[in-house]
């Protein structure tokens, strides 16, 4: 659909196939979610660097330019600050821009537009800012300090933003659609490591929507709760499977949304097992894990049987060389070690 055919002539309702699912990679789920929204709502557009005919640095938008044209899949100058201010301006005019940051690392060049402007308009003068920023983040790809960052905590600290971090293709689909439809600025942290390494079932149509602000219990357990998000969900699940073989029962809670945190789910999961291990790739100090730990300490202290434990990246840039990055990034081995220590406490 081009702008001429559809723009502002109303939202298209697509027929759902109730109950139908398809197998998609994490990357395909993101692409298909954008395609679904581009088809459904003529106000939705994509904007970013190299996202058009080239299909994006990671080919996430491949094929969308051909289907929707250059008025809805817009290649921009290399200017994140103008791009993000422009996205806010477009939203003032009734559009719903979805901006691809080429790497989450580059989001810092557009910082003012996000934390000073996009995040504050509704509070200051009642103007909603329905924009979605796709931030391909996190490490494990030997990409070095400027292509591996997990900088979500910057924005979790900022009032007025929402921050999501899907870990599965189903959530990648469902959370992206929810982000695009949300009347607030949403930063959508997609994990590059999972783009092609992870496949899974995705419910088609409206049935696949995932609400912002709801965590998901990925595995039920009785003795220890691992709270995490992003690629670390899968590392934690591997640990839970390993420990099950040792007759230990581990619960894994996938936060999915980092702002607002699903406080009820976090507290319920902490109270259930009395032992909590928080895991994330992002560096430790003032990370999301600190907030989760404080929440549990404030509200579930009396149900705890062990100190709340954090396993996070160290407070360094993300290094390049494999032995260094492996030492930086939590994984099944380090999670297993921390989990065993907590179980033995």
């Amino acid at each position, binding site marked *: 659909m081009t*702008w*001429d055919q559809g*723009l*502002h002539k109303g939202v298209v309702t697509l027929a759902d196939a109730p109950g139908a699912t398809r197998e998609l990679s994490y990357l395909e789920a993101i692409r298909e979610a954008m395609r679904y929204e581009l088809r459904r709502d003529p106000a939705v*557009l994509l904007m970013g660097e190299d996202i058009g005919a080239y299909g994006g640095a990671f080919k996430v938008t491949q094929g969308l330019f051909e289907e929707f044209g250059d*008025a809805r899949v817009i290649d*921009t*100058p290399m*200017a994140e*600050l*103008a*791009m*993000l*201010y*422009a*996205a*806010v*301006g*477009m*939203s*003032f*005019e*009734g*559009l719903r821009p979805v901006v691809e940051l080429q790497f989450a690392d580059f989001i810092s060049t557009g910082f*003012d*537009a996000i934390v*000073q*402007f996009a995040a*504050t*308009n*509704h*509070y*200051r*003068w*009642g*103007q*909603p*800012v*329905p924009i979605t920023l796709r931030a391909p983040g996190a490490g494990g790809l030997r990409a070095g300090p400027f292509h591996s960052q997990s900088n979500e905590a910057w924005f979790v600290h900022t*009032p*007025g933003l*929402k921050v999501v971090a899907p870990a599965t293709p189903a959530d990648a689909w469902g959370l992206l*659609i*929810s982000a695009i*439809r*949300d*009347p*607030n600025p949403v930063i959508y942290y997609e994990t590059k490591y999972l783009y092609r390494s992870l496949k899974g079932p995705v419910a088609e149509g409206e049935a696949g*929507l*995932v*609400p*912002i602000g709801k965590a998901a219990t990925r595995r039920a357990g009785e003795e220890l709760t691992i709270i995490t998000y992003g690629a670390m969900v899968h590392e934690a699940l591997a640990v839970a499977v390993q420990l099950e073989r040792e007759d230990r029962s581990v619960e894994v809670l996938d936060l999915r949304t980092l702002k607002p945190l699903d406080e009820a789910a976090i507290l319920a999961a902490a109270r259930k097992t009395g032992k909590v291990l928080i895991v994330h790739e992002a560096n430790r100090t003032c990370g999301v894990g600190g907030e989760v730990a404080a929440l549990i300490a404030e509200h579930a202290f009396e149900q705890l049987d062990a100190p709340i434990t954090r396993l996070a990246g160290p407070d360094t840039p993300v290094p390049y060389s494999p032995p260094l990055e492996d030492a930086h990034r939590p994984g099944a081995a380090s999670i297993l070690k921390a989990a065993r220590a907590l179980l033995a406490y």
Partner: protein
Amino acid sequence: MQLPPDLLARAHYSMRLARALDDRGTFLHKQSKIVGGYFSQIGHEAISVAASLALGPDDVCAPMHRDLGAYLVRGLHPRRILAQYFGRATGVSRGRDANLHGMGDLRHGIVGFISHLPASLGVIMGMAHAIKLKGEPRVALGFFGDGSASQGLAHEAMNWGAVFQLPAVLICENNQYAYSTPLTRQMRIEHLAERAAAYGMPGMVVDGNDFCAVYVAVAAAVERARAGGGPSLIECKTMRMRGHAIHDNQAYVPPELLAEWAQRDPIAHLEAHLRERGLLDDDALAALLAQIEQELDEAQAFAESSPYPDGADVREGVYAAGGA
């Protein structure tokens, strides 16, 4: 070229209203009725009023803290503006934002200002971009200053507008000082408008204290933008006649510079033109000023009798309701 009398009358009223509201705000701040900072725009009336009068009702603009005239021309009532200054629940930002900040209302085509200039240019480019994509015959206009021209965003936004040939007009209010920093520390060139050529858009310099000159230049740029001709940069030379904000006596400005610009007051300039054309006399001016004082008395009474926001609502409004 002579501008029509009805346009000049509206301009005169708006510039006088902006000046009187500015003076009243200063007075109320000295009485401690207005808290926090206070920004005067005296000397900028011709620019903000002319630029906003050159826009159509469906056009949009992003004013800054020296553009009281633009807010008034676009239809924000002095009641809401004074209530904003007083931090009342009836102010434009319902007490959330300070004085001339955050006074946005898209029903009037006004974007709420933030201190991070030239944010106005970035957001205006987005609005102009959307307008172009939608194929609507509308224009977006952004104000910025000489200091913010040194920001990277000024470059990014001007380049963006030129690359996409957007229906945008950029008004630089070159008032010689950014806080205490003089123009010579912001740029090596004489006219900021020279930079327009580097982006591939027209740039022009006008006397920012001459209403007619600003109006004619902006109207031409608006017409060009509306016709699909892309963005323009207009540099309006003026002088900040007061300090950066009310606490600042701007002792760093050479007195002779202020004296020189005092002789070029934009309101005096317009009134001389009106008298020359037989459109204004002493009685008419006295009547206009009395009418404005009465309007401001009423606006002040409204603002002062308005309730403060409830502290219990401090969390209200951070997020727009709705969504999944």
